């Protein structure tokens, strides 16, 4: 979901912005639901263990509403409980991308007027990742959710290298094509391999002395803007991001740097 800066001020009546608790049906009831399995067969002791697991999470009065034996020494629980430790919402600051997203025509027009040439964008799913659904959604002609992908923009020269592209190859192609921006997608992530892979690319770009010139962007279901900044990227796009959001950011950033 895309949020705006102004959304932060919106809240239900009578909420104390310094002490926000989960909401079930009454303000500050703190109600949450959790579900998990334990590696023990179902027994009265196992149910008690499920309750205590919730108490360890900081939940008061945990009620086990559903329990089931899964066989082979496993059991499953659905528990509701009350959280009593509030968060200080007023003090939270999260780095965000640009506020306004331009439209397809606005973006093309802006590039034409302010840059006077096409922006070269190269995209890939890097490392062992074979899942191109993210990069395809952003780059393919057809795009995603009714928005055209970068290949359709007359003012973008978009190159989608596809899946399982080694960082070395991506970098080499970026240099050959004189890319203005690199988009990296990481979908399948196990044991956080996506993080080291992304960081490596940023380092390689730096080592080539290209980091200043090339806009570096990553995306994927476990990526957000904050993580992207930590990894040395210019922006990160999470699940549900649209082609125009990416196009808008890349266009503005390339123009800004020229």
């Amino acid at each position, binding site marked *: 979901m895309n949020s705006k800066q102004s959304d932060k001020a919106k809240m239900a009546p009578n909420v104390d912005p310094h002490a926000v608790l989960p909401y079930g049906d009454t303000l500050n009831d703190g109600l949450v639901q959790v*579900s*998990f*399995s334990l590696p023990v067969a179902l027994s009265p002791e196992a149910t008690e263990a499920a309750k205590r697991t919730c108490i360890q999470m900081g939940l008061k009065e945990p009620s086990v509403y559903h329990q*089931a034996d*899964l*066989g*082979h020494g*496993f059991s*499953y629980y659905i528990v509701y409980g009350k959280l009593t430790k509030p968060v200080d919402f007023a003090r939270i600051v999260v780095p965000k991308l640009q506020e306004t997203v331009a439209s397809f025509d606005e973006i093309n027009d802006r590039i034409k007027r302010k840059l006077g040439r096409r922006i070269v964008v190269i995209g890939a799913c890097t490392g*062992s*990742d*074979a*899942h*191109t*659904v993210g990069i*395809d959604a952003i780059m*393919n*002609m*057809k795009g995603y959710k009714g928005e055209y992908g970068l290949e359709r923009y007359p003012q973008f020269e978009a190159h989608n290298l*596809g*899946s*399982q592209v080694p960082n070395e190859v991506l970098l080499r192609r970026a240099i050959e094509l004189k890319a203005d921006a690199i988009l990296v997608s990481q979908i*399948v992530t*196990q*044991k956080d*391999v996506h993080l080291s892979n992304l960081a490596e690319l940023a380092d390689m770009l730096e080592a080539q002395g290209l980091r200043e010139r090339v806009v570096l962007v990553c995306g994927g*279901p476990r990526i957000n803007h904050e993580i992207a900044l930590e990894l040395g990227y210019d922006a990160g796009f999470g*699940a*549900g991001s649209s082609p125009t959001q990416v196009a808008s950011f890349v266009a503005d950033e390339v123009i800004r740097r020229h």
Partner: protein
Amino acid sequence: MKGMLDLDLEQILRCRKAADLVAKSVLAFAGERTTVSIERATLRLLGVEGADDTGVPLVNRVVEKAIHLVPGGIMLPFAKAMMDTGSNAQETALAISNGQIELCEDAYQSKTVIDYADHLAAEAVARIHKTVSTRNELLERLGEGQRPLLYVIVASGNIFEDVVSAKVCVDAGAQVIAVIRSTAQSLLDYVPEGTTTEGYGGTYATQANFRVMRQALDEASKEAGRYVRLCNYASGLCMPEMAVLGAVERLDMMLNDALYGILFRDINMQRTLTDQAFSRLVSAAGGIIINTGEDNYLTTADAVESAHTVLASQFINEALALRCGLKPWQIGLGHAMEMDPDTEDMLVLELAQAKMAREIFPDCPLKYMPPTKHMTGDIFKGHVQDALFSLVSVMSDQGIHLLGMMTEAMHTPHIHDRVLALQATRMVMGAARHLGDEISFVPGGRIQKRAQEVLAKATELICSVADGGIFNALEKGHFADVSRGPESGRGLEGVYVKAAWYSNPIEDLLKKQVEWRGASNNE
């Protein structure tokens, strides 16, 4: 016979004819070629396994050392080496790998070598037959339950954790367990060795992992009182070798698509099209049900607009499979429910599509894949999407039902995600078991019209593919919006044009045992 959808039988016939032309030309092309993986697969059928002390599989070592013999086929020179040294296949492979003996060309003309190779071929084929009869006995004795078969994926990256998940799934009603393969394996030009305990995105498909899971599922089958099928992949650069390992280690299903590697892994088309012919031959003999990968088209292309490309590809996969000797019951043609769930009448359109596939391929155990593209991380919504999917599946009489997971697009499912999915699916399918038998569709209504429209578009596409050839169609990006050239992609260096004296007695014997038609003319 007029079906529920009032499909134009003339059109279906035209599609089959066009697909058969495509398949014929592909197999003519493949018939003139061999690949390093086909030659390695042949060595595996002779019983060569394991790796040398640097971890390189022996079959790779042997083929590398005798690469100049690949155009003539590795088997006769290898058989001669076995004869000369009086050792078995494994010992011979070790000796070649160590440089103690060299394979040479004078084997091709020798009658005694040819006779000996024929004898080895008979032994190799008998090994496959033994697996087939074991499976048939178990199926006879235990049965496997109602269709659609409930197919669940395990993917922890640790084969021993996968065993635990698999057994829990079998208890909850799973009938097929598929072990997901490490993401990058399709691009390796060798089959890794040993058991996997720390894989990325899955475990390696290795002979050792196959054995671990087969044994576990045999135990689970016994406990559950029904035969549980095991599925893995015969795809990627080692497609023929994977098919061989599947056939000897009693895998029951293998993912095997003629075009998938080309489109989605950028494997060279000459390589994959040559490899798939051999792998399908082995699968045919091994009683393996292949699963084709058309569902993947809809993850890149739009499910409503591109539905006909799935159907066109199904026709081609079917034609190739039939010509390679697979029986219709072995051809698990893939398709998927990938339309945006917020599209009005999504269920109506998907039902039309699923029912259409059923009517066009009545004897194939269609493999129906769950929503993935429009799964969001909202597990509650996802659970409902999966319930709709199960409903369409049972109503349209699918053969293999890959269970949707509410945590799709998030992480590998947790143990209870799989159990919840199985419970929900069984509930929906039980509740609607005979619903499909009790309904008919309005003549000229939305469902009939949609199915007719997709068939008409598929007919157009497949006829143009038949006119221009498959290479041309792939280059033009007719499938999944991806374009590939005949010289591009990985693995081309492993393709060799056969010499006039090419010989592969195992392949020849297998072809006699299944109804292999290859590129021959239809009678």
